[in-house]
């Protein structure tokens, strides 16, 4: 606890402190919510993310004002780059926007809660186990949730498959329909170049219980990242068969694909 206060004093400015406090978060009396987000840790994470966002990846975000300021929102994005860096950057873009910022919650792999220190830290920063029940309860709680429907299929893909969207799961669409959540498609360009992977070392991944072990550079390259937030999409809660849901998912996927293409065409160079 003392270490946390010490780091917070060193890193977090008064204005940042005020800004985070101002953002609506349904917290309990000691600064936690049921999923484990913690206000003070969030401030430290925010100040670190600020430097990573603006100095290291020099992120250019466009259309972040498209995310509604209130009510349940699902931010649907393409996943890439072995580590969930894209999630952090999307979250920061929304949390730092000038007009009515929000703290979005990211859904993480089931493997993270079993890792000492890391699982707890991710929870304190607002990440949540990627379980449909969690997502449903959050939408009912009027939260903005970042979902990568590709899951590990997306983040673990090799460099030669970059910017090819993998199969999308249908779960997010069912939840969006049920909870009347706004869907905001997000195209992420640049994260594929942060940790380019040449191969996946499957036997080692299996032995360690990891989703994948990439054969890649052992550090994160400073690629320039473009975030493209699309126009909000709305879906009614009609009682439709699964194939119709898949069609709706394809509409969102096409939108993300379009946003990625825009980003790629605007990009001048990789770094």
């Amino acid at each position, binding site marked *: *606890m003392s270490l946390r206060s010490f780091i917070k004093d060193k890193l977090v400015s008064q204005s940042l402190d005020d800004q985070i406090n101002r953002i609506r978060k349904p917290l309990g009396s000691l600064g936690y919510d049921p999923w484990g987000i913690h206000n003070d840790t969030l401030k430290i994470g925010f100040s670190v993310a600020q430097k990573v966002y603006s100095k290291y990846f020099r992120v250019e975000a466009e259309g972040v004002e498209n995310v509604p300021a209130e009510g349940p929102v699902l931010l649907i994005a393409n996943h890439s780059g072995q580590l969930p860096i894209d999630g952090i950057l999307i979250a920061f873009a929304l949390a730092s926007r000038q007009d009515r910022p929000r703290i979005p919650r990211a859904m993480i792999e089931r493997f993270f809660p079993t890792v000492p220190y890391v699982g707890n830290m991710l929870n304190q920063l607002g990440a949540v186990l990627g379980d449909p029940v969690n997502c449903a309860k959050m939408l009912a709680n009027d939260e903005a949730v970042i979902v990568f429907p590709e899951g590990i299929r997306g983040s673990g893909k090799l460099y030669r498959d970059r910017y090819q969207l993998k199969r999308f799961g249908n779960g997010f669409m069912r939840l969006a329909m049920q909870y009347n959540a706004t869907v905001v498609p997000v195209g992420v360009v640049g994260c594929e170049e942060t940790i380019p992977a040449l191969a996946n070392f499957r036997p080692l991944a299996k032995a360690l219980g990891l989703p994948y072990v990439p054969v890649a550079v052992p550090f994160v390259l400073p690629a320039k990242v473009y975030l493209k937030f699309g126009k909000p999409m709305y879906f009614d809660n009609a009682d439709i068969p699964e194939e119709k849901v898949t069609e709706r998912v394809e509409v969102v996927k096409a939108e993300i694909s379009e946003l990625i293409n825009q980003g790629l065409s605007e990009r001048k160079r990789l770094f």
Partner: protein
Amino acid sequence: MANSSKPAILVTGAAGALAQQVINRLRDDFHLVAVDFREQVYLGDDVPSYCIDFNKRVFEDLFRRYDFEGIIHLGRIMSSQETRMRRYNANVLGSQKLLDLAHKYGIHRVVILSTYHVYGATAYNPALIDEQAPLKSAGLSMDLIDSVELENLANIYLWRYPDLNITLLRPCNIVGPGVRNSISTLLASRRAPVLAGFSPMMQFIHIDDMADAIVLAYRKSHRGVFNVAPDDWIAYQHALDLSGCRRVPIPSIPPSLPRTIARLLGLKSFPSYLMSFFKYPVIIDGRAFRDTFGFKPKRPLKEIFRYYRENKHPV
């Protein structure tokens, strides 16, 4: 029989602090009869108190002697007490006997105290678990099997005999003055073990609030299963800090290591079968109980931890 104008209630687990709080809240309006199979406790001249095993035939004599209106069943042996077999006999078979007698003698109100442990702690638990969630503890630990069995039993009676009006309460960690469960012992100690790198979210309810909840559940008759927890949360290690405990980290991987260490050191308050509860969060959703019964806990977390900070027992 002293005062036959008041309706009679049987309260089990009378030796516990929670039962005594419940008795104090109800004694003016009801004729209470207290039972415990561990010891006989004196609860005042107006409350007859017995030490009886539910599985003995004399237990039925109580039902013949007093015309009970309802039962408040708080007498579950905690997993830290007794052997597995004795716990099963008392918690499962004893409770079955109790419910059979309740049906036989036309009792029309039963409140049963369970625990959130029945949900089981796993890495894949979502937060805000509601009452419909499967009771995973049965598959995770044989030491909690009697708690899950008691639940199953209560559920069978809940649906088979609707006239019993069974309300089953699943509270989060009950803490506060007089509570002797594992988590309360940990908060009250000067040094408490933690698993290195794990600080799961937890919920705590003050014993006074829990007693209020039980009384409310008894008075407002709504059948069903309900979680009981306040809308407030804290990480385990932070709770220890606020309670003035020094944290003693135990290596957490591989999972067998902390279990072995706890067993070798004989840490009673940190039993091996609860180890996963100190690793993964089990956050329950208390909204159904809050909305159905109009329940609002009055003691905030800060007050709970202040009590433990000021009342340390030597380790």
